[in-house]
């Protein structure tokens, strides 16, 4: 393990030197990133704190809700951590030039795996903790824990929690890749995804989450049943449950419970650390070979079909057809890309299924609450669209990579490349957003006028958010980076997502304004002013990012 320590020391030194160089050479970029991350963290903290105070003020039911929200928050973080680990591990375990180098050295596979385990843990968890820290700090503030006490809980509780998530993620990927020697990787992923969905569905069905909603909420018996349900729901075998228990038992001064859950986290992390080690010792090298062997493997039949298929789009100008063919095939053949896209689809699917299956009794709701549900749903759509465009559209220009010379020396203008990427993104994301909007409007029983307004707003949002991500993606293009996740989590990506969310917030506010003026205030004449303002805002968000992006690409030298 001393070799591992040596490599680790070199890596840490190299990271620090990179960070220092970055701070010195790109002060402005570094300051902007730091400012944005701090703003998100502090903003989230106050947002969570305000929400928690509101719930606390509602009495016993509010406190129960608060505990449940805290548990759900960490459960989501835990799930996302596992998924994020699986996706990041593709690069760290198999696509890293360092791994290829180490495999030729007299270093054991286990040592290499351990090194990459640590690296993966760091890469996959730092961004999610931006959400986890404010959530925990605000919850602790409500539970009257001091900052020192909170730091103790995080310091001792978080590392084993992260190790558990990383171990599960990495073990899952090792097994998936190992199985892929007999079954296609797509099929294994589909099987794992479907199993995950069925387990979740079974869990929700057994825990009867919709029970209180189906009952008559005016009855005390129903509320009683709801409270009983809430206290039973946390799943006792989830590490996120153990972690949240650390905070609650500390706040209740229950040292035995605190020690129990801490020991549970430490022991599980230890067992999984050893378990993944054993697994890696036996199959890591084999899986590495499988992935190396997968490079370049394809069937002649598949390739000729895909190419013939695109050649059929004769109505497209020939160069555009070439770009469409290239971009489509590259996307389909990059598991990092389509797995994440499927994950988004999976979450959206769950949201729609929940809307469809839970009987919300919209018809019995007061108009105010019906509008509230509609606005939350619209905001959710906007948020999904912003996240999708920042994750998938932003890296599109950078994904041209070192092969950018091909399109820059080809006889067409850079506008064509921009237009193709814009329309491809628009067709996919607008369709997706509209499906979600139409389905949710249907389930929420919205009237035609409101549905039309939201459809129009979504159209504008799709165009603006895609323009923003595409334009900024060109301004902050990183042609030497091949990992789309790293591209979208860089400075430019963070700036894009923050601006996108800010834009979505403005659009939601504008929609609220229109609905308020239309239904509640009787001052419908002002609606036109909001419409004009929204159109001007969207022109701004479409025109300038695309203009800056195009200019950046035209003037960039390769």
């Amino acid at each position, binding site marked *: 393990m001393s070799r591992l320590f040596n490599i680790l020391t070199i890596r840490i030194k190299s990271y620090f030197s990179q960070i220092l160089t970055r701070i010195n050479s790109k002060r402005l970029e570094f300051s902007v990133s730091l400012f944005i991350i701090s703003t998100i963290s502090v903003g989230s903290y106050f947002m969570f704190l305000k929400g928690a105070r509101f719930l606390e003020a509602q009495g016993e039911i509010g406190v129960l809700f608060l505990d449940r929200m805290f548990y759900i928050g960490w459960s989501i973080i835990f799930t996302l951590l596992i998924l994020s680990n699986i996706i990041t591990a593709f690069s760290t375990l198999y696509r890293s030039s360092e791994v290829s180098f180490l495999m030729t050295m007299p270093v054991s596979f286990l040592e290499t795996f351990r090194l990459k385990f640590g690296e993966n843990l760091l890469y996959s968890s730092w961004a999610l903790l931006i959400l986890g820290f404010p959530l925990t700090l605000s919850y602790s503030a409500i539970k009257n824990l001091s900052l020192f006490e909170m730091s103790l809980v995080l310091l001792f509780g978080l590392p084993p929690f992260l190790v558990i998530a990383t171990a599960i993620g990495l073990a899952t990927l090792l097994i998936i890749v190992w199985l892929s020697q007999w079954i296609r990787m797509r099929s294994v992923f589909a099987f794992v995804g479907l199993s995950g969905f069925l387990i979740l569905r079974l869990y929700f069905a057994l825990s009867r989450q919709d029970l209180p909603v189906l009952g008559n909420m005016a009855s005390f018996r129903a509320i009683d049943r709801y409270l009983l349900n809430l206290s039973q729901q946390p799943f006792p075998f989830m590490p996120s449950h153990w972690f949240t228990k650390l905070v609650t038992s500390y706040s209740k001064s229950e040292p035995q419970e605190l020690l129990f859950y801490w020991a549970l986290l430490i022991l599980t992390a230890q067992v999984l650390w050893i378990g993944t080690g054993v697994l890696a010792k036996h199959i890591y090298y084999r899986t590495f070979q499988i992935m190396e062997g997968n490079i370049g493997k394809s069937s002649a039949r598949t390739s000729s079909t895909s190419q013939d298929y695109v050649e059929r789009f004769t109505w497209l100008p020939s*160069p555009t057809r*070439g770009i469409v*063919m*290239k971009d489509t*095939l590259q996307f389909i053949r990059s598991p990092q890309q389509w797995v994440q896209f499927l994950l988004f689809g999976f979450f959206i699917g769950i949201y729609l299924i929940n809307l469809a299956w839970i009987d919300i009794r919209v018809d019995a709701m007061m108009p105010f609450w019906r509008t509230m549900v509609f606005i939350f749903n619209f905001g959710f759509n906007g948020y999904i669209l912003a996240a999708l465009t920042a994750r998938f559209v932003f890296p599109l220009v950078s994904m041209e990579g070192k092969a950018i*010379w091909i399109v820059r020396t*080809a006889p067409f203008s850079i506008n064509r490349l921009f237009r193709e990427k814009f329309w491809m993104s628009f067709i996919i994301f607008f369709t997706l957003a509209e499906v979600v909007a139409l389905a949710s409007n249907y389930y929420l029983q919205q009237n035609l006028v409101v549905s039309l307004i939201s459809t129009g707003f979504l159209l504008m949002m799709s165009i603006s958010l895609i323009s923003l991500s595409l334009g900024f993606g060109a301004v902050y293009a990183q042609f030497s980076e091949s990992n789309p996740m790293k591209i979208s989590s860089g400075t430019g990506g963070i700036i894009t997502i923050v601006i996108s969310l800010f834009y979505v917030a403005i659009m939601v506010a504008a929609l609220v304004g229109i609905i308020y003026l239309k239904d509640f205030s009787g001052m419908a004449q002002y609606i036109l002013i909001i419409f004009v303002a929204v159109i001007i805002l969207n022109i701004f968000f479409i025109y300038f990012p695309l203009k800056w992006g195009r200019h950046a690409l035209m003037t960039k030298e*390769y």
Partner: protein
Amino acid sequence: MIQIENLCKSFGELKAVDNVSFHIKKGELFSFLGPNGAGKTTTISMMVGLMSPDSGKILIKGKDIARDPISAKRIIGYVPDQAYLYGKLTGLEFFHVIGNFFNMAPKEITKSIRHYAQRLGFESWLNDRIEGYSQGMRQRMAFGAAFLHDPEILIIDEPMVGLDPGSARIIKTMLREKADAGVTVFLSTHNLNVAEELSDRIGIINNGGLLAMGNLETFKSEIKKEGNLEDIFLELVQNQTESQV
């Protein structure tokens, strides 16, 4: 066919290309020689539109690459020194993409692929993904892509990088054939044997400036020394370095 006039390009204090001018005729095979960092790749990058000059003009068959880049690029076939291609595509798909970029009809693309795959010997791996190719295979693919639309001008940066002797021989033969058939070939290299063997005319560049232009005989008479191209090249470069010191 190619006209370069007073071309200049600087990166900060460094003058990468310093007032370079030359003309290349139709059907001529021109070699651009120079040591590492002499300014060869920068000149080529400006010729194919990857960089813009600080001053000066590049005319490709009378079309200014800065003002009318699309018309100029349409008649150029370019092979870079490092052939980064679309790794996720198969060779066949890659050629179809390139063919589409150059407005070729599908039948024309298929015919051209068949011809060059056979000449350059990559028929057997056309259905494999490029990410699995060796450097030499990628280099051959890059040549295939540059030849695909039968360009009037070929601009090639370090043609022999990564090629095995057999492939290098095929490429040299094809370049000479192209030039004989009326295609203008601009070759940048620091491989003196290739330049000596293939070129109609040679330009020597060092420290961003054009040192000499001509063929082996004119160089010999200019510096009044006998020997091969290597001796002449080293003499010229050394003379310039000494005069600068």
